């Protein structure tokens, strides 16, 4: 009675065919990238050395290292984090703990989606208009970092909101029943239970921020500077812009130098991302509820 019929066989064949087809499509998305990464490692690997990382570009940027760009990227990311993490976490706390389900909350969510969706070059225009010109910061680390902060704010908000919402409602109710105020509950119970999720979001933001180029091009990153930045009102070099400059603006840059910069940049970004993903998997493994 349950013997396979011809129809069953046909169905199973169709299913196998489609499984193979979609598996192939997945592979074809991933393979080019693996090839590309391999090429970057093979061609950029020989350029990597302590000297490459810790010396300044020389000879009209056709020789030397990337130290000022590396330091500049650290500055830009650090200042951007200082601005965006407090605002992002506050915003996420409001959305996860306070916001009623009404039109205003919908509007906030729509604004967040749009902040993430607006082209990076429009963020750059905003940075020029608001921070460089209107606020009078000039082309500086401050202006560039604030532009980056605005652009990557959704990353922090979304990650934090998710990890706050993952804390069971019963935790809060237990705390309220003890007479704690809303904020005491958030501060003593909700935040400690979601801090690692928030950290994952912050690491993700570091990765996003350090790779961005368009928003910093006109707000504070310079093509070449012979000195390191001394404060937030200085201009700076940046790794991402340095790659753009080497590959489009400077003639006769040796190939290994370009590939070296690309490799360092992508290595930094992917390492951060892998760290964030690994952290998330680890947390999922040891969740207490």
């Amino acid at each position, binding site marked *: 009675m349950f013997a396979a019929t011809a129809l069953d066989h046909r*169905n199973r064949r*169709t*299913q196998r065919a*489609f*499984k193979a087809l*979609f598996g192939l*499509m*997945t592979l074809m*998305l*991933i393979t*080019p*990238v693996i090839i*590309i990464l391999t*090429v970057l490692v093979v061609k950029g690997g020989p350029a990597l050395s302590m000297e490459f990382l810790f010396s300044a570009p020389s000879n009209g940027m056709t020789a030397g290292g990337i130290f000022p760009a590396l330091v500049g990227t650290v500055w830009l990311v650090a200042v951007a984090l200082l601005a965006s993490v407090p*605002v992002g976490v*506050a*915003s996420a*706390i*409001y959305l996860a703990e*306070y*916001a009623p389900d009404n039109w205003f909350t919908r*509007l*906030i969510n*729509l*604004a967040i*989606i749009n*902040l993430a*969706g*607006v082209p*990076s*070059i*429009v963020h*750059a*225009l*905003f940075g*020029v*208009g*608001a921070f460089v010109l209107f606020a009078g910061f000039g082309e500086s680390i401050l202006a560039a970092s604030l532009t980056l902060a605005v652009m990557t*704010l*959704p990353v922090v908000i979304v990650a934090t909101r998710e990890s706050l919402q993952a804390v069971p409602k019963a935790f809060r109710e237990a705390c309220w029943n003890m007479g704690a*105020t*809303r*904020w005491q509950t958030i501060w003593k119970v909700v935040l400690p239970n979601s801090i690692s999720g928030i950290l994952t979001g912050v690491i993700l933001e570091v990765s*996003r921020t350090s790779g*961005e*180029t*368009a928003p910093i*091009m006109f707000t504070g990153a310079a093509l070449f500077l012979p000195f390191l930045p001394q404060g937030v009102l200085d201009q700076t070099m940046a790794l991402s*812009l340095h*790659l*753009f400059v080497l*590959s489009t603006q400077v003639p006769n840059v040796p*190939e290994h130098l*370009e590939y070296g910069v*690309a490799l360092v*940049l*992508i290595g930094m*970004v*992917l390492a951060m991302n892998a760290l964030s993903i690994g952290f998330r*998997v680890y947390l999922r493994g040891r969740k207490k509820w």
Partner: protein
Amino acid sequence: MTNIDRTVDLDRRGRDWYIDKAVSWLVFVGGASAIVLILGIFAFVTKEGLGFILGPMNFVEFFTNPAWRPTSRPPTYGILALMAGTASVTGLAMLISVPFSLGAAIYIGEFATGKVRETLKVLVELLAAIPSVVWGFIGLSIMNPLIIRVFNVPLGLGILNSGIILGLMAAPIMTTIAEDALKAVPDSYREAAEAMGASRWQVILKVVLPAAKHGLMAAVLLGVGRGFGETMAVLMSSGHSINLPTSPFDSVRALTATIAAELGEAPGGSDHFRALFTIGILLFLVTFAINLTADIVVRGKGKR
């Protein structure tokens, strides 16, 4: 009576009460910041662009003239060729990435299991993290010679190069969102269909895909938005010359790339500077419309 005492005690506005009130205002301000910022972006970009829109801009010429010559005398500000550049590159990117992303999403969401599935998800996520300037560099130094050799053309920078690069960039985002949409379909739907004797593929085709239709549409829309707004990768891989393209090997220039290439040279407050901000307004409005549509599409499903 102890009961009454306690009620009074709860009503007393002590330090904790004030802290609680202050914090609730503080996080409200944080919550509203996204709205303030998006309005701020529109206001500041419009403020600079308005001088051009109300001044030398000729609407018909702006949208129908293929000549973008802001530094000639007299200058012409026509973005037809730039729009054609953006459209052709984004179009090709979608042609490549929509089928592959949806296919990958179905495979990851419905067929793959356990370790394979987790690994694929992580790989897709890492793919999405590659910075656009690195993609641009790949277009310039890996794809360019490859296209020259394979197709025997003089220049490998153009629609084909940019389209492939943008396709690869947009694919992980579309895959992730599409897979989320598939995951949002309740398992009870699948079980009900399987109980009726449907094969896995029949379940996907007749039950899961129709149920996830809106989410999948949103995924495609957000992918289009990503391609449309991409700047550095397009700037570096498209060849950046003003053209009304006739073949996939033609070099084109995108709206976003034009701003990135020229903003540094345009003196602040000049017509050229303001014209670039006007393009910025256009980019903002189009991406806003795309995101709004995606939001409405997803919500339309929720109401049913």
